[in-house]
């Protein structure tokens, strides 16, 4: 790391090398990543409204700045200045903590995601990276349950309980759909998974079923349409965040969009070759990018960003296209279709891997 | 390197707190949480010994303990739901039908 940026690295001359490598650099990277992600998340809200407007043949926000492009600055300012209401009978402490809980894991996960060719764009490369990501994303549900419970409002509570049931249910196919990829790459490290794909093909081809299940589960995990039952406005007012206003509401909002971004990054890394554009080791591989220097590295980042942007748009597309599921249909889809399908996918993948290896040997 | 004993002592503290919770509380769900705390203290001890001995067997036990803890939580909480339905309480002192 210090070899690529000698000037900056020399600033830390007095700090022992392992500290620089393991503490200082990741911190700097994380702060930069955090700032960029906050920007992207805020910008996504604008993009969502514009794209939805386009899909529904209307304009969308277009007043603040040219083409409404500054709307994403105006929204947080508005939310910041709004009155912070605490409902009577709310559990004060829990009500206050709840919006913070989903946002911590949502942003913490970005520490583990490589945004481009390593080591420059990867904050950390943990050997159990994927498992840790699953673990962290599974803790995001607490804020929602707690927020729903602490609000002292039956709609909030119902929204919170629905959300808990939904997220716990869809965590299972979410995890199971990844197993096929893990079997193919033989590693839990995201960098390694991408590396395997550039040497062969994108995992989406051999793992089409897994990719499909992942896509459905990741949409359900972040409570997006067509699985946005926890906040179904026609039945539950606004679900778990009915009683939240101002910045606390913004935190829930931010966490949802950050989780969307995490899942979009994950699907790109797991199934669509991450930052590479290569088949069977030919094309833009990590190695080519690293030999090209900063240009190549930035190119890798841009490729990654473009792929992620596609999936972010896909979320919005889903919202503009599909009607909302009923709760019993949602549970049925999760438990009776997605989980068995994912299990069959694992078994078939295992058999195929076994046959190919034995045939090749 | 942190000495193994430190982890063991920490595990002992957590375990004792769990025991304390089980013995003093009347709320069934809190008692259950105390049991989970004890289970976790045991896990900590297992991992500490696994590190001390440089062996994977401790880790394996932790996996099985986690499986047992998950099963226990599922069944136990179902029992408390059933109890609440019949008795409208989760006070363990009230569940004394089999008590002589």
């Amino acid at each position, binding site marked *: 790391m210090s070899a690529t940026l000698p000037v900056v690295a020399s600033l830390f001359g007095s700090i022992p090398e392992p500290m620089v490598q393991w503490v200082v650099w990741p911190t700097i990277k994380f702060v930069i990543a955090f700032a960029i992600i906050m920007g992207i998340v805020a910008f996504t809200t604008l993009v969502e409204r514009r794209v939805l407007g386009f899909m529904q043949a209307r304009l969308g926000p277009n007043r603040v700045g040219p083409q409404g492009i500054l709307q994403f600055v105006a929204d947080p300012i508005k939310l910041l200045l709004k009155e912070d209401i605490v409902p009577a009978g709310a559990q004060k402490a829990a009500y206050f903590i709840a919006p913070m809980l989903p946002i911590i894991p949502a942003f913490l996960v970005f520490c583990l995601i490589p945004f481009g060719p390593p080591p420059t764009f990867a904050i950390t490369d943990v050997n159990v990276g994927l498992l840790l990501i699953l673990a962290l994303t599974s803790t995001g549900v607490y804020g929602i349950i707690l927020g729903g419970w602490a609000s002292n409002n039956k709609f909030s509570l119902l929204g919170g309980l629905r959300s808990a049931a939904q997220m716990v249910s869809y965590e299972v196919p979410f995890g199971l759909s990844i197993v096929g990829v893990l079997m193919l790459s033989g590693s839990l490290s995201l960098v390694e998974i991408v590396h395997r794909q550039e040497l062969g093909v994108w995992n989406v081809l051999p793992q089409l079923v897994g990719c499909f299940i992942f896509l459905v589960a990741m949409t359900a995990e972040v409570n997006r349409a067509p699985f946005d039952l926890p906040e179904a406005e026609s039945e539950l007012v606004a679900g778990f965040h009915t009683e939240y206003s101002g910045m606390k509401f913004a935190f829930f909002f931010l966490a949802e969009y950050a989780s969307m971004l995490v899942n979009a990054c994950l699907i790109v890394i797991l199934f669509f070759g991450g930052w590479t554009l290569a088949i069977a080791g030919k094309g833009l591989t990590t190695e080519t990018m690293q030999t090209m220097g900063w240009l190549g590295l930035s190119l890798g980042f841009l490729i990654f960003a473009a792929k992620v942007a596609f999936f972010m748009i896909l979320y919005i597309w889903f919202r503009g296209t599909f009607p909302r599921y009923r709760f019993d249909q949602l549970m049925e889809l999760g438990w009776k279709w997605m989980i068995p399908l994912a299990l069959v996918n694992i078994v078939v993948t295992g058999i195929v891997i076994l046959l190919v290896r034995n045939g090749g040997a | 390197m942190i000495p193994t004993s430190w982890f063991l002592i920490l595990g002992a503290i957590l375990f004792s707190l769990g025991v304390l919770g089980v013995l003093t509380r009347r709320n069934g769900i809190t008692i259950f949480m105390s049991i989970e705390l004890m289970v976790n203290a045991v896990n900590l001890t297992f991992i500490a010994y696994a590190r001390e001995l440089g062996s994977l067997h401790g*880790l394996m036990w932790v996996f099985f303990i986690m499986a047992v803890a998950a099963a226990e939580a599922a069944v136990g909480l*179902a029992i408390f739901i059933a109890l609440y339905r019949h008795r409208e309480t989760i006070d363990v002192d009230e569940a004394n039908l089999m008590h002589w």
Partner: protein
Amino acid sequence: MTDPLMLTGVSLALFVIVGAIAVASSILVVSMRNPVHSALFLLLTFLCVAILFVSMGAEFVGAVQVLVYAGGIMVLFLFVVMLINVKALPKEKVFTATSMMGVLMGVLLFIILAIILASGTWAPAVNAPENLRTAVVVKTTPVVDAGGATIQTETVTRDVVGNAEAVGMALYRDYLVPFEVASLFLLVAMVGAIVIGKRELDASEEEAIPEFIAKKVSDEDRLKEVTGA
């Protein structure tokens, strides 16, 4: 030595801080009146223990700890606490003879455990955490001659980097039977939980379920009914 947790100062500070948080929050688990608060502090304790697992070189178990306890068990706890009316909390008297006995027993147990443990080693661990991190996998392939008799066995030794792989190898080779038993055990627990937790509906409640949820009408028929097609 590239492991940050090997830096004595950092690992010591980590242990002290995380351990203190774990102890403090577990005290709060057993002392909070509201089970939701207890559950949240228990969650904090679990996360602290997970950090300690990682600091001992067992990243895989640490991640599984967060996944199983934080992602599964505690959500279940919170779910049940919310299903059960919070107003029905039992009245807990703190300074009764029983609870004082409980406290006494807890303290006594700790003293006994401390005495046992204190007589043990206070020296640094014999084996470095790398031993948890790398396992040597030995693959044996019998070499057979033309007649089919085994002349010798070729052993392939390989260093496994990554706790996950080491754990996986141990779990699916040495502990295969216990693993299968555990899966069966989980199945039994699942069936048991459903049977115990399930509520029989009485006739009036049975009536109240909308037809489309009771699956008396298929979704297609329902769609036709709604759209009038």
